[in-house]
């Protein structure tokens, strides 16, 4: 079965968790005997085709698209994506279905669905209403509408958590049985303990310091400012803590200023973006990994931390609270509350026995539930069900299109 994935980001170009999700899913599908084809953007002139372990990746040039702003850039990018997909479909004739990931590739996916009359499946990784805490301006209205249209046009909608299923259903009045929950996975093999771990620690902290690690975009929904607010409280109890904050975003400067104003700048290290090796290193060096999100449809960071044998402290929100069982494989703290977050961090740092207990349980959970091959199998079962329904349906290509 050939599956055409439409995703605006794909490794090596990564902005959020979507790129990793599509890559891992496609590779797991290829291992299962499916033929995944990915259409995605290329930047800095890296367009072209590559076949990686059975995954066909077609990258089109998305540089230098003049636009009013990011949403209008995304819509124009979709025109190029649709053109690229049409050419790829000419080569891989018997495509079985389209699978789009988030609103950023929705307009091309919807047009392709109608032109080729093939079923469309969409994965909603997050919603605009959640990313911004509401719909306030015209840009958000448009994105919200596109998301609504995408789930309306989809044969099946996939979400990564029950929380997202409820959100999609209530936001767009989607029938409950149209939405299936398939969680994100984690490739534990990518998070092996690196060599010279302790020697590498010098890059981030002093030998006696305990690392509290955050990674993610520095945006409102990720709650990075909540973490900075917790630093003084933690240092009062654990003066040896060192806060390493990776990632970047519109709140980076604000957070740096907050750290300076709180007098904790010397205990805080902003690393900006880190590569995969450094990320793995930081997970393994961490005494606690924090995920203080205000809005989180799923939360890939805690999963990666769990796979790296690091204890996690998360805010009790969205899909995060479905991953973690409190005091069994992580700690839950109150959302948008620096004091509560500080309590969670301090508890893990001061109680090595609890940290060890949670790490062991978390590693087991990752192996048993969040393995990509298991996730891909669940996704492919949904594909098969959709294809079976489609074959019984009269909505099919007719006329000249059927001959091409």
């Amino acid at each position: 079965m050939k599956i055409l994935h439409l995703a605006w980001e794909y490794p090596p170009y990564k902005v959020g968790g979507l790129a990793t999700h599509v890559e891992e899913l496609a590779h797991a599908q290829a291992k299962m005997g499916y033929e995944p084809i990915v259409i995605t953007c290329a930047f800095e002139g890296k367009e072209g085709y590559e076949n990686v372990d059975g995954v066909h990746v077609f990258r089109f040039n998305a540089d230098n698209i003049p636009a009013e702003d990011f949403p209008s850039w995304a819509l124009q990018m979709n025109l190029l994506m649709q053109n690229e997909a049409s050419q790829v479909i000419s080569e891989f004739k018997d495509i079985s279905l389209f699978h789009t990931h988030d609103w950023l590739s929705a307009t091309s996916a919807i047009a392709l669905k109608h032109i080729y009359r093939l079923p469309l499946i969409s994965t909603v990784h997050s919603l605009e209403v959640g990313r911004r805490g509401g719909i306030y301006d015209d840009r958000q209205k448009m994105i919200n509408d596109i998301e609504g249209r995408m789930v309306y046009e989809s044969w099946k909608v996939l979400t990564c958590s029950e929380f997202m299923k409820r959100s999609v259903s209530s936001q767009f009045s989607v029938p409950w049985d149209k939405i299936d929950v398939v969680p994100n996975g984690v490739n534990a093999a990518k998070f092996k303990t690196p060599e010279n771990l302790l020697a590498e620690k010098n890059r981030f902290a002093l030998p006696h310091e305990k690392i509290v690690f955050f990674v993610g975009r520095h945006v409102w929904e990720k709650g990075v400012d909540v973490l900075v607010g917790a630093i003084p409280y933690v240092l009062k109890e654990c003066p040896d803590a060192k806060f390493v904050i990776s990632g970047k975003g519109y709140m980076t400067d604000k957070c740096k200023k907050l750290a300076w104003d709180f007098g904790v700048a010397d205990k805080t290290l902003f690393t900006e973006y880190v590569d995969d090796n450094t990320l793995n290193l930081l997970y393994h060096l961490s005494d606690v990994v924090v995920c203080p999100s205000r809005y989180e449809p799923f939360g890939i960071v805690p999963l990666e931390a769990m796979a790296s044998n690091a204890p996690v402290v998360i805010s009790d929100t969205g899909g995060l609270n479905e991953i973690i069982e409190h005091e069994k494989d992580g700690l839950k703290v109150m959302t948008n509350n620096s004091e509560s977050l500080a309590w969670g961090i301090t508890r893990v740092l001061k109680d090595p026995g609890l940290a060890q207990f949670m790490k062991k349980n978390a590693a087991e959970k990752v192996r048993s539930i969040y393995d990509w091959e298991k996730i891909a199998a669940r996704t492919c079962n949904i594909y098969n069900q959709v294809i079976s329904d489609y074959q019984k349906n009269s909505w099919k290509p007719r006329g000249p299109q059927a001959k091409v």
Partner: protein
Amino acid sequence: MNNLDLNQKIINNIVRQLRINPLDEAQRKKPKNVLLISADYLPKDVSNVALQCKSLADGLAERGINVHVISVDDWKAGTTVEMGAVKVHYVGNTIKAYSPLTWALTVGMDVCRVAADIYHNEGNIDLIHAHDWMMFPTGINLQFALKRPLIVNYYSLQHHRTPGVSNGFTEAVKQIEWRGSTESRRILVNEDWMKRELMNYYSPPKDKVNVIGPQAEDWTKDIVRDYSWVLKNWWGEEENIDTKGGNPK
């Protein structure tokens, strides 16, 4: 097979598909089914574009061509109105766009949907004729997907509408106008002046641009002649024109 070989294979395959014609010889040369796409169409709008599209559609229908028009009207969305021998399909934009650019880019989904329905349900489409920049992106997408040639009609240029202005919106529209001139198989304008302006700003090959305006008597006869010329070229019978070229200024 390495990546380069596969890329070449894909290109060959696309070229082959573009050239293989399931239709018979007579059908190749004469347009039988024409799809006009225009944001404006009478009676909703009384713009130059709407007037000319209506006049063109009626003229083509009088010459025995099966004409489908897809236009935008939120009140009539989802309906098909038969105006004489012309079938006018109305779509609406379900997306609340915040600018003319985002409006044009989102309404394309529904234009594609209706074009695909015509294609699958009612038979063939021989060529697509897109009017003004708002319909160029959809026209280009349909050309790629349905493998039918695209003709574009320019009524004005962004350089004229906002002279001397350069911002995200104007540059995006210029890029779309430029893509319309490079991706289409034929460019139609109403005046010699517009042809000169178009060539000045977007540099398409001179013989790709034709001046056929409603001011001329029997102008739809000339349009049909151009359609036939495009179809012959499309199916590989006369390859005497380089349709690519130029850069946006």
